């Protein structure tokens, strides 16, 4: 970051760690010129829990539970990343049934995450009603999770070697119902927010991120795709059941806050399409591999998946023991965060809130 030396007369504000629009305990150090933001320095680490270090003392099936607590809105996808990495290291492949169920859960998670993002993004811009519309629909997904996995937020359902248990007999029926329900409700989102004049004025042309910037800073996920950066792992390196279905990558080239918003709205439609292709075709099969012990052989392994926020990489260094010798997560939010100074400098405070909302930051994922 290119920040000039701090002058004596600068108006510095600490936005956070407790602030309504940082969605957690992130701290922005703002320097203001009246209403204008001169620069932003994000300070992370407030909620650092040492998850990577803790992983070194847990066996592979145990450490899955910690990954829920990183990006708590993509819990299933985080679980899947670890599971895939461990399975890759052991050179085993799960049954098609497991692959299908994992992908359905992941796509449901993606929709739920985008719903919550949409709700909170509206709140950031001052449209308070969006929050209740988004959460009304998110509840339906959480109910499906609760029925099948017994938990609503941190499920820890996907585990190396398969699944914790089989899904509820109603699972497919409820997912199919949800697809129908949400196809009807999604246009409401556009009516309430997308079409609003004030909303468009507030987001168009604000915080423009070029494709080069996105690649330089490693901004992935919907935020990167809003700038035309093709970074959808589901498309580049299909895993689980993605090779069996047609995935359309949503990209826009404008790179402003409005483009990042539209990418997420379109991704919800796309996720519904993927779910529709999967939900009626779930094959029968075992839900857990019969393995003697779940541990990675000596070596280094890397697996990446597409979470709701971008590319999550899991890097395991194993010495052949029951727990990893070193564990590293490449979390999407950590990379997405640091472009904020480049995007927000020169804009107003209100724009900073809009931009940080459009990057869809989940703070525990930044700090881990």
């Amino acid at each position, binding site marked *: 970051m290119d920040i000039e030396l701090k002058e004596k007369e600068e108006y510095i504000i600490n936005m956070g760690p407790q602030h309504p629009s940082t969605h957690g305990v992130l701290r922005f150090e703002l320097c203001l010129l009246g209403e204008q933001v001169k620069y932003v320095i994000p300070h992370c680490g407030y909620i650092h829990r040492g998850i990577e270090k803790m992983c070194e003392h847990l066996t592979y099936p145990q450490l899955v539970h910690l990954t829920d607590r990183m990006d708590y809105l993509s819990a299933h996808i985080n679980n899947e990343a670890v599971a895939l990495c461990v399975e890759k290291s052991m050179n085993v492949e799960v049954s098609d049934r497991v692959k299908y169920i994992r992908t359905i859960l992941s796509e449901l998670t993606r929709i739920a995450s985008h719903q919550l993002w949409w709700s909170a993004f509206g709140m*950031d811009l001052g449209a308070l009603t969006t929050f209740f519309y988004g959460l009304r629909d998110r509840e339906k997904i959480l109910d499906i999770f609760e029925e099948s996995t017994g938990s609503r937020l941190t499920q820890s359902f996907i585990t190396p070697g398969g699944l914790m248990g089989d899904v509820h007999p109603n699972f497919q029926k409820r997912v199919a119902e949800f697809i129908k329900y949400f196809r009807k409700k999604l246009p409401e989102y556009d009516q309430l927010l997308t079409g*609003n004049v004030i909303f468009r004025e*507030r987001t168009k042309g604000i915080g423009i991120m070029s494709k080069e910037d996105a690649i330089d800073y490693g901004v992935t996920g919907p935020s990167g795709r809003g700038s035309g950066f093709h970074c959808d792992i589901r498309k580049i390196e299909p895993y689980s059941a993605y090779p069996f279905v047609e995935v359309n990558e949503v990209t826009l080239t404008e790179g402003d806050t409005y483009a990042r918003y539209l990418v997420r709205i379109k991704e919800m439609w796309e996720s519904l399409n993927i779910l529709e292709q999967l939900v009626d075709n779930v094959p029968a099969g075992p839900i857990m591999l019969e393995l003697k012990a779940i541990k990675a052989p000596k070596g280094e392994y890397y697996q990446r998946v597409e979470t709701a926020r971008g590319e999550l990489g899991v890097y395991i260094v194993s010495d052949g023991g029951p727990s990893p010798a070193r564990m590293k997560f490449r979390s999407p939010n950590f990379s997405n965060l640091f472009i904020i100074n480049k995007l927000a400098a020169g804009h107003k405070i*209100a724009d900073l809130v809009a931009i940080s909302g459009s990057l869809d930051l989940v703070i525990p994922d930044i700090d881990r």
Partner: protein
Amino acid sequence: MYDFAPLIDSITSYLNTNFSPFWAGLLAMVMLGLVLLLIYAVLGLYLVYAERKICARMQNRMGPNRVGPMGLFQTIADLIKLLLKELIFIRNADNFLFNIAPFIVIVASIMAIGSIPFGKGLQAIDLNIGVLYILAISSMGVIGILIAGWASNSKYSVIGAMRSGAQVISYELSVGLALLCIITYAGTMQFSEIIASQQNGWWIFKGHLPAMIAFAVYLVAGTAETNRGPFDLAEAESELTAGFHTEYSGIKFAFFFLAEYMNMFIIAAVATTLFLGGWLPFHLFQWQGFNQVMDFIPPVFWFFGKTAFVIYLMMWFKWTFPRLRIDQLLALEWKYLLPINLMNLILISFLTLMQWHF
């Protein structure tokens, strides 16, 4: 029918016969003050309740429904809670100004209530410059907001107060000009005479298109003047936590809160009086039967019904629109509302001159 003048006259004559002129005057003032304060408190509390219920309806929620039937006593319970809360004193704040700011805000809105005609004869003071008085008094509130932001010695508060100052001073112009349109039509600034001039039709209907434009401009500018969403930049929860009243607690916070709702009521009441015929019933041409039925409804109900409608419109804005940015807010006023208003005023002056309104 439903004239309150005899009642008030009988109270006055009772006071005058039983007390000396000094005591009679004093008692009359005290009674008037108490009644106004009571109206103020009850209206304020139930506006908060109404907003919570209306926003709940818009957000698929129930709203308050536990304290009393349909949650009717919820806001009273909230007020008691706020009264009992600790008042936090800030070490580095300017304590004198910090304490006086909420009173300036609330006194300004209580004073404005005094000249609002609730019904025929139900008006504490019928000034011959009533509209001007309301404009002058209600813009005093911004001084309280500016003082609150400055005295709190908090960076967020200063930004909130700064925004509020810029906003209220700009939108005051539009409010004044929109009201001037109707004053031009009616030819007076006295509320009772403005209402009398609408005996055969409300100004929003009588005044052709310009009156409707003036009403729309007044609604937008009025919402902005009360610092409510989508113009709540002074508070801007997601940006400035709570803007100018970030550092306030307990009853001092409640004063700001109540004053916001009462300012909304005042804006709506003035809109009702000037554009929608005040406490006059709705009449349709020469339909005697219909008009008589309408006359049967007491004027107070007409006044509060119309005001409630305008307030509902303002709440609808707040709960469905995102917030504007400060530069967009000022651009809206200076680039759009003000020129429209000025053109509108010229048009209305012309119409009035030619006697082309009904």
